[in-house]
């Protein structure tokens, strides 16, 4: 029963979405049903976010209580969750500092703490990419050499300084890189990947609808 009911729900939900595609949503009952299913999905999605927050809070709280390794960091996580969540949950009618509007505490914490920290983490990539390029990007064989030449040309083409330098060699060179490397070789490969992934997704969806694939039930 614990397996059959979720499989039936998945099958019916999927069939509603598939069948509704072929009917006019305003003239058929399926359209209304589809809209209801989509509303439920957004509501369930909201609850899964809540579940995630509760879960991370619980796990970290236990670790702090039991003084596990690195409990200090976990305490910072807990304080951060509360500092962001509490002012955001309190209605902004009480004070403009509450809620998620402009000039609220949440807004300030996001703009001046969260955003710079995320940007810093992302910016670190520049250092690691340079290091990796210097140490590992070697012309060891023909394929690697071709990749190296293509990458160098694209990197030059993507910045104004490089573009001018390329145009000095030949005025049509920057456009040729866009046409033949990006719009030619790159696009052909990307299309293959996209079509392959789409076929895989369709096959997986069918397996879920028919109840063959049950890993989402933890099986």
């Amino acid at each position, binding site marked *: 029963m614990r397996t059959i009911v979720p499989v039936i729900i998945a099958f019916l939900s999927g069939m509603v979405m598939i069948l509704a*595609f072929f009917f006019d*949503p305003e003239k058929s009952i399926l*359209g209304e049903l*589809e*809209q209801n299913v*989509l*509303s439920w*999905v*957004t509501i369930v*999605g*909201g609850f899964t*976010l809540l579940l995630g927050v509760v879960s991370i809070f619980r796990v970290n709280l236990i670790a702090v209580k039991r003084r596990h390794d690195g409990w200090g960091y976990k305490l910072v996580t807990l304080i951060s969750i509360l500092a962001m969540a509490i002012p955001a949950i309190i209605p*902004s009618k009480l004070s403009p500092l509450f*809620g*998620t*509007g*402009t000039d609220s505490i*949440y*807004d300030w914490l*996001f*703009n001046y703490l*969260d*955003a710079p920290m*995320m*940007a810093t*983490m*992302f910016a670190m990539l*520049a*250092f690691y*990419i*340079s*290091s990796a*390029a*210097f*140490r590992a*990007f*070697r*012309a060891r064989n023909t394929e690697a050499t071709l990749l190296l030449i293509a*990458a*160098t040309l694209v*990197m*030059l083409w*993507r*910045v*104004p*300084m*490089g*573009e*001018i*330098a390329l145009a*000095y060699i030949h005025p049509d060179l*920057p456009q040729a890189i*866009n046409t033949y490397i*990006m*719009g030619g070789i*790159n*696009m052909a490969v*990307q*299309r293959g990947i*996209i079509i392959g992934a789409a076929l895989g997704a369709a096959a997986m969806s069918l397996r879920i609808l028919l109840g063959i694939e049950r890993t989402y039930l933890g099986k």
Partner: protein
Amino acid sequence: MLEVLKIVAYTILICIPAAVLLYLTFKTDDRRYLFIAVAFYVVFPVVVTISFPTSLSPESITLYEAVDALPDSSTVLLTFDYYASTLAETEPMSRAALHHLFKKDCRVLTVTTIPLGGPTISERVTRDLAEEYDKVYGLDFVNLGYKANYVAVLKGMGSSISAIYPADNSGTPLSEIPMMADIKNYDDIDFIYVVADNGIVEYWISIVQSQYQAQVGCGVTAVMAPKIYAYVSSGQMTGLLGGMKGAAEYEKMVGHPGSATQGMGAQSMAHLFIIVSVISGNLMFFIDRKRGRKRKLS
């Protein structure tokens, strides 16, 4: 000619410290010399403003022309599908798009599929630009905010926006917002301008463009741009802005040079430095290999 001389000067500037630092990295196997070099080439062009003329790519021209061809007072859905980590690349795109849309008196509907900061970023950027163009919230622009599960949100908005978003980002019911009176679903939206740093952009194509025939154009991070070429070529995507360069191109077209245009100097220097480091890394690799062979033979 002046541009070429400038490039030669900057290349010498790049090559000399780069050669020293790369040699030290290679000899000592200490990556910190390389990190110093990267920091220098990113910070230097910001402190000493280095600028080069930005040329326009056909993909960004297509996007600009598609937006420009919209009749005045059209309704445009602008998405803020990006995290704060990629603000340097994506926010200039949103700002340039808003300059263009507000100049054309378009009605702008903003939406985000990113829970972490998405609504905050869209609120901040849109209100900032709206103030500049004297636009009124509820009449000229509306921020719908975030709703969980983007696939359902994108699909649901095709039938009824108010069913998915009963209220805007600040909690005002859509029925009380004048601008939303005649915007029911994608049929009432003339253009969808997606700015994204993740795979959501493909859902805007597979769900919204393919199933509802909406006109979709996008601005994405440089790392995502190669994938989107396939959709631009098939005509499913109307134009593309790729990374900070794409943002700088759009800024140039709308006549509002901003942070992307300023960032081109730093990006140019960093790219050239990486190219120099790849070439020198390979040179050292081949010299080492040759020496190794000689040693083996002797």
